[in-house]
């Protein structure tokens, strides 16, 4: 599903990746650990098409992202991948419902508002936030906020979910729930093509539950066991 070939990347003088390689062949839950500042978020942005490598190729679902223009990359972010962040990144001046519908605003598909609203209804019911839709984010708990963010990431039905420390700001109870949701999403039998959950985490426990466990270090990416 994802293939990184000889990726080099730096922020101006700050070298982050040298000749980074990775292949994820099948749909799975994949965890990524590594010390803070090593470049985990940067790694997700490369796969999410928000950053371009200096050299090397990022191929996702057969699509070479370097060769895409901004419009088709945006389209890719809008429909193929979903982002979830540690700090949720909800917009405070929009209600839960409006926040979830943001990807619909940038959708280039002909599918209308009706379809988006239907999808929203289904998602809020599944995520158990149907009673919160008209509230504003600052009146929600951390877990509720993250569930809103997940609904937003899933609105356009992506095949890949990129989660950047999704439980980093949550208590253990909420963490449990969020993880269950993400796992359930990945394992969902109804999805025609397989789904990939790529999750950055600090938590050894969480990482351990993944099908595939990756570690990012100064030497690059490597699979870890146990």
């Amino acid at each position, binding site marked *: 599903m994802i293939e990184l070939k000889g990726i080099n990347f730096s922020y101006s003088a700050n070298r982050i990746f040298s000749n980074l390689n990775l292949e994820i062949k099948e749909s799975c839950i994949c965890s990524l650990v590594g010390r803070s500042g090593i470049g985990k*978020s*940067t790694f997700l*942005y490369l796969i*999410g098409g*928000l*950053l371009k490598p200096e050299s090397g190729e990022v191929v996702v679902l057969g699509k070479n992202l370097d060769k895409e223009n*901004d*419009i088709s*990359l*945006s*389209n890719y*972010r*809008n*429909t193929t991948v979903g*982002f979830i*962040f*540690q*700090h949720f*990144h909800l*917009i405070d*001046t*929009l209600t839960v419902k409006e926040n979830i519908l*943001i*990807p*619909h*605003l*940038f*959708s*280039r598909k002909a599918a209308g*508002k009706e379809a988006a609203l239907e999808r929203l209804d289904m998602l809020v019911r599944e995520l158990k936030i149907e009673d919160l839709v008209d509230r504003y984010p600052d009146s929600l708990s951390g877990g509720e906020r993250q569930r809103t963010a997940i609904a*937003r990431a899933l609105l*356009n039905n992506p095949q890949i979910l990129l989660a*950047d420390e999704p439980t980093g700001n949550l208590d253990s109870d909420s963490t449990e729930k969020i993880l269950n949701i993400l796992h359930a999403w990945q394992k969902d039998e109804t999805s025609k093509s397989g789904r990939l959950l790529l999750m950055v985490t600090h938590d050894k426990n969480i990482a351990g539950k993944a099908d595939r466990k990756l570690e990012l270090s100064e030497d690059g990416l490597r699979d870890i066991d146990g």
Partner: protein
Amino acid sequence: MDNTSLLYLVKRDFKRERKRFIGALWSIFIATSLLFLLLSLGLGIRSYVIEKILSRLPSNQIIVRSKPLDLMGVSFSSSKSSGLNNNKVKEYESWKEIKKVYKQADAAFPVHVYGKLIKSYYGSDAIIVGYDSEYLASGQDWEDKFKYEPGKPVPVVASSTLLEIYNEAFASANNLPRLTEKDIIGRELFLDLGKNSLRRAEDYSPLNVKGVIIGFSNISTIFGASVPLEYVLKWNKMFGMKDNNYSALILEVTKPEYVDEVVSRIKDTGYRVESNLELSRRLTTLTRVMIGILLILGLLFLFLSLINLVNIFRLIVNERKREVALFRSLGASIKDIISLFVLESALLGLAGSIAGILSGLVFSLIAQKYLLAALPSFPFKPLYLFTFSPLAALLIIAGTIVLCVISPFSIFVKSASSDPAKHLG
């Protein structure tokens, strides 16, 4: 992003940035209002100059006069030996640049004019100038009356400038009634030829002739009477002028471009040459410079309002870094983000400039009313100060919109294409 989504986001931003956008609108409003007012004033000055001055100065005409003889500091502009005779007329007529030659002859004898105005007789020493009928009368509604017809009263044309001066300066100051052209046309007057209040023609006895005012002209000599050329030629002979010389020839060129060339050619032959072209040019340039200055002043205000707009957007963009990064991660393209900002600034420009132009219009109409009422009456007092041009209004609106988009554009581009990773953490 489709239009519905774009409008949704714009609406939301206008709500959220209400205070700042009102600030931006206000400065655009003031600037375009002043710009429109100043430009309308400039155009007003221009149409005044064109109507009151340039239209009286046909630019394809050249006036050739004999050089005044300068005898011990006393100059004479007599028609004696001017050399402007029928041979000269023929010569000029043969030039390909010249379409028409008109003749003018000044009376070479003293004249006093008097007539009945209201109840009493008024009189004045005056200048009598004879013009080719074709030159002075063509196109006027008194055209067919301006003719040499011995035995009938002499047809006299007065100066419309004089009438204006009388009405606006003299009549109001001396409590005399204002006069219209109609009041005066058809009135009889008398010309004492050969004498005035200062002198008497030597060797010749004066002559009294009856005249009638048939009309007014811009070209006509201001403090005097214009009559058909033949009368003056005849009277000049009676008062001892031997040769049939003219005081001036008026040359009409086929194209205004020829004026300069013809003028310099005739100057070289020793005549005094006047053309309106130089004056028209100078006046045209002057009004252009004036409009330019007013325009620059107005644009300065617009420039200040644009600086304000740019600063406002700089703040907004700075505050929205995280939101822009988030939108990008959720599928907004660089173009989407730029469109959003561009539409917002264009709407500010549109609303601000339309409101500005309307208020500039209203304000200048009010100012015009009070200023004109406050000004005393004087000759050539304008009837209006401002000329409103719908084209100018449209140009200001379009220009303001374009400038409102262009000025902060680099900020928009920078914001839209900045690295989302930096702001999402």
